[in-house]
C-alpha cells in the first residue's frame, strides 16, 4: 500500500501554545484513517495544514507526492475534498446550485454528475429548498457532496457525524464505506464517536497534546483491544486473593466488580471462590472498546 499523506516532525504554534509538536503520520492510499483525539489535541490543526488553510511552523508533509512548500501542491489539493469543522456552502442556494457552484469553481467541463451526487448523498428530493433551511444532517450530507465534486482521491471529514441522528450516522457510515470500496477513495476521518469510528476505519492515528501517540491498523487494534471477563462478586477482597493466587491480571471496577484479563477455566475459578467462601454473582465476557483502549493509551502516555 503506498502512502497518500506523510508528515515529518510537523509543528504548529498558536502564539505560545504548541498545537502540533513534531507530528509524524502516514495515511496509506485506499484506507479509511480514523483520526482520534480529545478536543484541542491537534486534529483540526493538522487538517487545516493539509488543506492549506494554515502553514506549518516547522517540519514538512507530503500530499500525493507533493511537498507542502512545493508551488504545485495545489495540484494535489485538486484531487482532494474536505469538510473542515462544519460543512461549507452558500446558504442562499439550493443543494443543486451549490454543487454546480463547486463544479464551476473547480473548472469541471460539465456538471452532469451533480444529480448523481445528490442521489448518492440522499438530497435528490430537496428541489429548490435553500441550504439555509437544511437540517444538520442534510447540511452534513451537502458538505460531503461538495467534497465529492470532481471525483477526488482523498476526502477529509472532520467530525462527520456531529449532530446527526442515529439513522443519519448509519447513512453517512454506509456512504463512506461504499465510496471507499467502489471508488477507492482514501478517507481521513476525525471523530469523537470512537465506537462509530471502529465500524469504519482500516487504520488509526491517536493524537494527544499535539503528538501522535500511536498509529496502527484495525487488525493490530483488534489484537490489542483485549477481551476480559467482567465479574461481580460478593467480596472483592476474596477476588483479589484468588486472582493473586492464580497470577491473573485484573482491574477492580468498584466495590464488588472487576475485569479479569485471562483465559480461565470457569469450574476451577468457581471452586477457588467457593474455597474463599465467597459467591460469584454475575460473570460475562466483555470487549474492551476503542474508547477504553484510547483512554488506556493516553493514561500510559501520561504515566510514561
Amino acid at each position, binding site marked *: 500500500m503506498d502512502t497518500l499523506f506523510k508528515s515529518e516532525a510537523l509543528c504548529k504554534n498558536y502564539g505560545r501554545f504548541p498545537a502540533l509538536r513534531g507530528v509524524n503520520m502516514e495515511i496509506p492510499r485506499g484506507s479509511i484513517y480514523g483520526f482520534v483525539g480529545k478536543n484541542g489535541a491537534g486534529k483540526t490543526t493538522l487538517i*487545516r495544514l493539509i*488543506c*492549506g*488553510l*494554515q*502553514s506549518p511552523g516547522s517540519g514538512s508533509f507530503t500530499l500525493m507526492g507533493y511537498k507542502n512548500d512545493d508551488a504545485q501542491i*495545489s*495540484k*494535489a*489539493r*485538486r*484531487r*482532494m*475534498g*474536505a469538510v*473542515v*469543522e*462544519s*460543512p*461549507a*456552502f*452558500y*446558504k*442562499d*442556494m439550493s443543494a443543486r*446550485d451549490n454543487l454546480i*457552484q*463547486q463544479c*464551476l*469553481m*473547480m*473548472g469541471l467541463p460539465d456538471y452532469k454528475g451533480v444529480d448523481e451526487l445528490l442521489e448518492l448523498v440522499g438530497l435528490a428530493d430537496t428541489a429548490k429548498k435553500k441550504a439555509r433551511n437544511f437540517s444538520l444532517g442534510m447540511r452534513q450530507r451537502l458538505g460531503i457532496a*461538495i*467534497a465529492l*465534486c*470532481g471525483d477526488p482521491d482523498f476526502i*477529509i471529514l472532520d467530525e462527520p457525524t456531529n449532530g446527526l441522528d442515529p439513522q443519519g450516522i448509519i447513512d453517512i457510515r454506509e456512504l463512506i464505506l461504499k465510496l471507499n470500496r467502489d471508488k477507492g477513495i482514501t478517507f481521513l476521518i476525525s471523530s469523537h464517536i470512537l465506537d462509530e469510528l471502529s465500524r469504519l476505519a482500516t487504520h488509526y492515528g491517536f493524537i494527544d497534546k499535539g503528538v501522535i501517540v500511536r498509529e496502527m491498523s484495525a487488525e493490530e487494534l483488534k489484537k490489542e483491544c483485549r477481551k476480559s471477563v467482567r465479574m461481580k462478586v460478593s467480596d472483592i477482597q476474596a477476588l483479589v486473593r484468588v486472582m493473586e493466587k492464580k497470577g491473573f491480571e485484573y482491574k477492580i471496577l468498584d466495590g464488588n466488580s472487576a475485569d479479569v484479563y485471562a483465559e480461565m477455566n470457569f469450574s476451577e475459578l468457581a471452586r477457588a471462590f467457593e474455597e474463599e467462601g465467597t459467591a460469584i454473582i454475575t460473570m460475562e465476557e466483555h470487549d474492551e472498546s476503542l474508547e477504553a483502549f484510547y483512554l488506556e493509551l493516553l493514561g500510559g502516555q501520561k504515566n510514561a
Partner: protein
Amino acid sequence: MLRMLYADTRAMLLSKGLRLCMGACIAYQWGYAFLMWLLLKYVLPGEGLYAEEILAVYPGIASFAVTAATLLIFTQEYSDGIITNKLCSGAKRREIFFSLMINALQLSAVMSAAAQLSGLLAAVLFGEGFYNLTLAEMADSFLELLIASAAVAVFSSALIMILGGKSVSYIVGLGIAFLCKLAGFEVMDKLYPTSGRCMLSGTKLSLYTFYDKYIPYSHFGGTPRWDMAAALAGCLGCILISLAAGLILFRKKEIR
C-alpha cells in the same frame, strides 16, 4: 482564475445580499421620489420636482450601499467557509483574492447601473423633466459614480479579506463610510461655503482640497467638482493600495 471569477460572479448574482441592497436602494429612491411628488403636489403646489434631484438620491447613499453590499455578500466567504472550500479544492490564494476583487468591481458596476436606471424611471414617472442637466453632464456624473463605487467596493472587499468575516469587518467598513460622509460634510461646508468665501488656507486648505479631490468617498456627490483625471487618480490609488495591502496580508492569513 477565470473559472473562479465565473463561479464567484454567479454566486454574487444569486446572493440574497445583492437583492437586499438593490431592493433597499430602489425603495429609497422611489420612496423619496413619491413622497416629494406628493409633497409638491398637495402641500407646495407650483414647485417642481426635477429629474436631477431624483437622480442625486442614489449617489447620496452609494458609499453606504456599496459597502453594505460587499460586506453582506463577501463576508460569507469566511463565515460560511467558502474560502475553506476553495483552498481545499486547490485554488491559490492569489486567484481567490483577485477573483473576489474583480467581483467587487462587478458588484459596484451592477449596483450603479441598476440604481441609475431605476432613478431614470422614477424621474420619468414623478419628475417634471430636467432643469438644466445635459446628457454629457449626466454621463460625467455616472462615470464618476462608477469609479468611486469601484474604489469603495475594492477597499471594503480587501478589508474583509484582511479582517475575516467577523463583525469587525462590518464595524470598520461601515464606520469608515460614515466617518468619510461626516468628513465630506465638513469639507463641503468649509471649501464651498453657502455664504461668503472659503476661509481656509495653508495645510488645512491643502488637506481639505486633497480630500475633496482624491478621496473616493468625496466623489459620491452626484455633481463632479473636479475633472475626471482627479477622480480617476484618487480612486485608482485607493484600488491599488487596497489590492497590494490586501494581497500581502491575505497570503499570510491563517484561516480558521
